């Protein structure tokens, strides 16, 4: 992935290089993020897909400097934003970026909003933290933000507490806070997992519209391949803390060269399929991050695994332009000498 980064430096707004975030627990070292590389282009939506414990959320939290140290530790890596390495910044300088230039929408709006302050109060706080304007101007701005995220009856809603909002409305309020300072990067960590499907569609549409309006970039973290198919332009697939495949949306879905991605796609039932095809699940379960298998972490579940897979972890190689995979047999998928079924 390193090559790709240096090729297109101009339009990259964020570059993450060789990021490793470990947690030191009593039971051993949890390698939550272990060698993540990616770049985010201006105006794009980058999808990060993976199952529970694949390290997708920890990647996001590390970018924002929200890892508790200890037990967490950032072992290595660079996060280049605006020509600066965010990992080298002091906490006071980092605060200029966090919630301002880079902001985040969390999964569960109930636990991420403060229950004892009104929505207005929390909105105004996020504005005043980063902008030198009067309280009155901030109030006006907060009203405009509620308008932008589609909350009606704004003046009354400013005085409401989070518990008076429905799940979808809370997530709208969270989005209003996240975009309060017109960030260049919006990280959405499973923004709709806690919501019903019809509400999920509303919220994702809202995030996409705001992105297009403000020409910002979005990192969309999810386990839902349907959501990825709809909104992402490029996708990073993670497994057990490592990126295993990174490619354009079409390459991921139609031309995948990593067995885990192939397995994920085979595991979901498609609503549009006329005749019922049996699902093809991946056998076994994801490994514990404390006790990772030797070699490729996916090898014990992989039906294509050969001897070398159990000995060392395959490097991430650009197999074709913009298409990276960490698999010893990726080339065989690519030249079709290995069947994808």
């Amino acid at each position, binding site marked *: 992935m390193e090559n790709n980064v240096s090729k297109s430096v101009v339009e990259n707004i964020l570059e993450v290089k060789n990021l490793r975030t470990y947690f030191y627990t009593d039971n051993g070292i949890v390698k939550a993020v272990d060698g993540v590389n990616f770049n985010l282009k201006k105006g794009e939506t980058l999808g990060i897909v993976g*199952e*529970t414990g694949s390290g997708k959320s920890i990647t996001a939290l590390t970018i924002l400097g929200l890892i508790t140290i200890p037990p967490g530790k950032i072992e290595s890596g660079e996060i280049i934003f605006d020509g600066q390495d965010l990992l080298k910044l002091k906490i006071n300088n980092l605060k200029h970026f966090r919630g301002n230039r880079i902001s985040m929408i969390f999964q569960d709006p109930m636990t991420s909003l403060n229950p004892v302050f009104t929505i207005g109060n929390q909105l105004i706080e996020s504005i005043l933290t980063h902008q030198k304007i009067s309280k009155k101007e901030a109030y006006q701005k907060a009203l405009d933000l509620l308008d932008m995220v589609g909350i009606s009856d704004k003046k009354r809603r400013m005085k409401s507490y989070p518990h008076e909002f*429905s799940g*979808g*409305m809370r997530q709208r309020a969270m989005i209003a806070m996240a975009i309060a300072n017109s960030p260049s990067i919006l990280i959405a960590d499973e923004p709709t997992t806690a919501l*019903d*499907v*019809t*509400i*999920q*569609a*509303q919220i994702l*549409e809202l995030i996409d519209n705001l992105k297009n309006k403000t020409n910002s970039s979005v990192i969309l973290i999810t*386990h*839902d*391949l*349907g*959501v*990825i*198919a*709809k909104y992402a332009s490029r996708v990073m697939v993670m497994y057990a803390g490592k990126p295993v495949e990174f490619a354009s*949306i*079409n390459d991921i*879905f139609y031309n995948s060269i990593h067995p885990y991605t192939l*397995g*994920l*796609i*085979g*595991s*979901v*039932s*498609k*609503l*549009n399929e*006329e005749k*019922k095809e*049996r*699902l*093809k*699940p*991946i*056998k076994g*379960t*994801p490994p514990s991050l404390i006790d990772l298998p030797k070699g490729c972490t996916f090898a014990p579940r992989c039906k294509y695994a050969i001897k070398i897979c159990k000995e060392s972890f395959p490097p991430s190689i650009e197999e074709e332009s913009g298409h990276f995979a960490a698999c010893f047999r990726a080339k065989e998928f690519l030249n079709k000498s290995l069947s994808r079924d």
Partner: protein
Amino acid sequence: MVEQENNLLEVKNLKKYFNLKTGFIINKSAGSVKAVDDISFFIKKGETFGLVGESGCGKSTVARLLLRLLKPNAGEIYYKGINILKIKQSRMFKYRREIQIIFQDPYASLSPRMTIGDIVSEPLEIHKVADKKSRINKIKKTLKVVGLNPEHINRYPHEFSGGQRQRVGIARALILQPELIICDEPVSALDVSVQAQILNLMLDLQKEFNLTYLFIAHDLSVVKYVSNRIGVMYLGKIVEVAPSEELYSKPLHPYTMGLLSAIPIPDPELERKRQRIILPGDVPSPINPPSGCRFHPRCPNAQEICSKQEPELKNYSKDDNEHLAACFFAGKPI
């Protein structure tokens, strides 16, 4: 409800209201939550009937009512032609053997202090099936059937992953050789790759033991994969019932259309070409549901009549397969 004999389960006009109370010393009634409001459906022997709906639509309450874990306010539940709401507890005991449940959360539904063997053998003890020796053989056999290692009989739930725990839950439901299994969101707590394993296992077991499933979930693509027929619920009401292929290809109720359209399909080219309908607004509170058709405030097709009169569930099918919908303008595109 044409052929009575083939129906393993038949539900008629089932209602469940939960009373709300306010006040600390003197309880005042503050209305009720109409969790399940006059629903009827049937399940044929050997089929899977899917029940979908968003949170708060009453689908889990239906599961509890069918097991008599909750007492309905009105209605009838016929199991093999017998109204199980009218029979005594002692007779109900016999039927409990035949109707089992698989719960949503495999972390909360297994006692952490019991071994896998104890958990799976508890139904045998309660119903006094087999002696101790043959019980162990039976448990080992069942564990093997659901894809667990029979050697793990003495392990505790915390030693297993989510998918394996759900297999234990399935083994517990299976051991009494039931006829009907109620599956209340059995895979929604699991990762995608593990979901597919459990869904395939459930389909295999159905074939092997001739099981009938009531499959409750909020994920329409999962429900479509396992079900023969699907019922769609909205705010305590069934708004549409159809064979699963037909529900997808020819939905009649605007809520079903909106629900189908809201689910993104994991196929980028198709998904980006597709016209999506996004339903406006939130699901209203079941405490004070909208007048007339409960869906009318969110419905793009709503007319004056929709807010005044409640539409009945009518059959729109021309052949033997029922396709029911409760809408004055059923089939009108949105």
